[in-house]
């Protein structure tokens, strides 16, 4: 456990030694701020429209897809490029500890940035009467953390396959776009009668978030989905690191 902590601490601190952490926080906070401002304008002009916490949560889900590749790309790919992976693999650290430490470092950064976005629901709470709904706030932020954790795990795995960071970045982005935007429409085109449609709609990354968690529903099915994806890809990353030893 100590090793995981040591590795994740280094990764977390290094994000703040480079522009990455600040750029990610800036992009997310600015975008959410613009959405927040627009919603307030609409609410002022339209009678009967009360903006809820979903005005922050819905764009944030999509933003994660776009910024997480920037968080995960370097995690293992850079170690391979620099050759420092040789030092880590000859230190008394288990392969899974290395993978989990890297994942946790990225996840802590995401938690930090997400915590900053809480200013928007808090401000909204001041503006609307009688305050915002607490349910979607909790379930939505739980959802964001689950989506983030699983996407970072996928990113760590893709990072472990490459020593070229740009290749890792593009691949991660492509996989995320496929999971978030493309699987859903495919399953709709195939129609509900098709046997593979059920599987595809289960794998549709965004519906687990948009249809339930954002609306204040914590369905065990969705939680299990994201947690299993996280566990699966951390396992695959460990395998990938171990295979590196044999080649």
């Amino acid at each position: 456990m100590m090793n995981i902590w040591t590795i994740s601490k280094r990764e977390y601190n290094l994000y703040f030694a480079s522009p990455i952490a600040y750029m990610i926080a800036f992009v997310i906070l600015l975008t959410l701020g613009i959405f927040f401002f627009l919603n307030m304008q609409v609410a002022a002009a339209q009678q009967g429209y009360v903006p809820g916490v979903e005005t922050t949560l819905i764009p944030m889900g999509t933003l994660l897809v776009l910024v997480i590749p920037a968080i995960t790309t370097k995690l293992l790919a850079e170690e391979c490029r620099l050759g420092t992976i040789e030092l880590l693999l000859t230190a008394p650290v288990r392969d899974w500890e290395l993978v989990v430490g890297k994942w946790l470092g990225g996840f802590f950064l995401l938690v930090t940035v997400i915590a900053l976005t809480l200013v928007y629901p808090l401000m909204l709470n001041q503006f609307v009467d009688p305050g915002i709904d607490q349910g979607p706030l909790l379930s939505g932020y739980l959802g964001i953390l689950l989506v983030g954790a699983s996407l970072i795990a996928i990113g760590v795995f893709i990072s472990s396959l490459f020593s070229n960071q740009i290749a890792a970045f593009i691949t991660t982005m492509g996989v995320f776009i496929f999971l978030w935007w493309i699987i859903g429409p495919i399953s709709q085109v195939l129609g509900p009668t098709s046997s593979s449609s059920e599987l595809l709609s289960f794998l549709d990354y965004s519906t687990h978030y948009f249809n339930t968690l954002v609306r204040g529903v914590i369905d065990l099915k969705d939680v299990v989905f994201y947690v299993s994806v996280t566990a699966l890809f951390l396992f695959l990353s460990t395998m990938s690191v171990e295979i590196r030893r044999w080649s």
Partner: protein
Amino acid sequence: MIRVEGLTKDYGPRRAIDNISFDAKKGEILGFLGPNGAGKTTTMRILCGYMPPTSGVAQVAGFDVVDQSLEVRKRVGYMPESVPLYPDMTVFDYLKYMADLRRVPEAEDRVEDVLEMLHLEERIDSFISSLSKGMRQRVGLAQALLHDPEVLILDEPTIGLDPAQIKEVRNIIQEIGRERTVMLSTHILSEAQQVCDRVLIINKGRIIAEDAPEQLQARVTGAKMVSLKIGNDPDGVESILSDLPNVTNVKKGKEGSFEFETIPGTDPRPDVVRRLVHAGYDLLDMHAVGASLEDIFLQLTRDEPTVPEYAEIDILEEDDVNPDESSE
């Protein structure tokens, strides 16, 4: 401390090391000598738990490198050939990180001690990206020494350094090697001679000689090479030398320099000096040239009965490898 028996490693169809065996005692500095691609790095990587062997046994400090890999890794300090470092960390942060990963007690003090030992204390807060090659090498060495390992494995520790730095690193290694087992690889014979207690010569994945460096050199250099330099007009020197007994193979070099070989067991140097000075030549310099690695190497591989076999393997390999490469 190190025991290796029948170690073999294949990368796909290519055999990197082939059934090698050796051992190293505590307090011994073992040199691993051979050309690039001979299998030095592969052997070292196996010994420090980076990769498992295809077959054979390797033990470090009594622990098996495959079954007790973590125990081995705790006891080994390793500096890879490329000296990988994180350029965006400071020297202190990097070493502190590596010390924490190895659970070094009172890591900060230990980092400072090691930096002082390697004369790096002034650069403690410098970013690694700003260090010169020699300093990076020392940071890499510091990393390998942090946890006071019983066995130190250094892959080409002096490559790319200037002569002053090479000397410094050699001194450090000798210092360290008094109480620990050090295994270092090199392709410079003089380095092995100066630093190592024992030398293994490896070629194409096999150990072809193992001995103390002096013995090794004596064993292979039957004929001694002598080089000399004449200050004034060197016409006629060649014929004088050739006429002397026990002198063979006279070669004329640039700007009045000459080389000749002596017949084994004789030393014609006093005769050479007398004759040249008597004939009015200004003898500026004369010294014996030790056998270079290439000489030793050629001689050893010539003595190897299995050389034709290697050649066959090479041809087979090229046939095997080429289609793969073109399909990639």
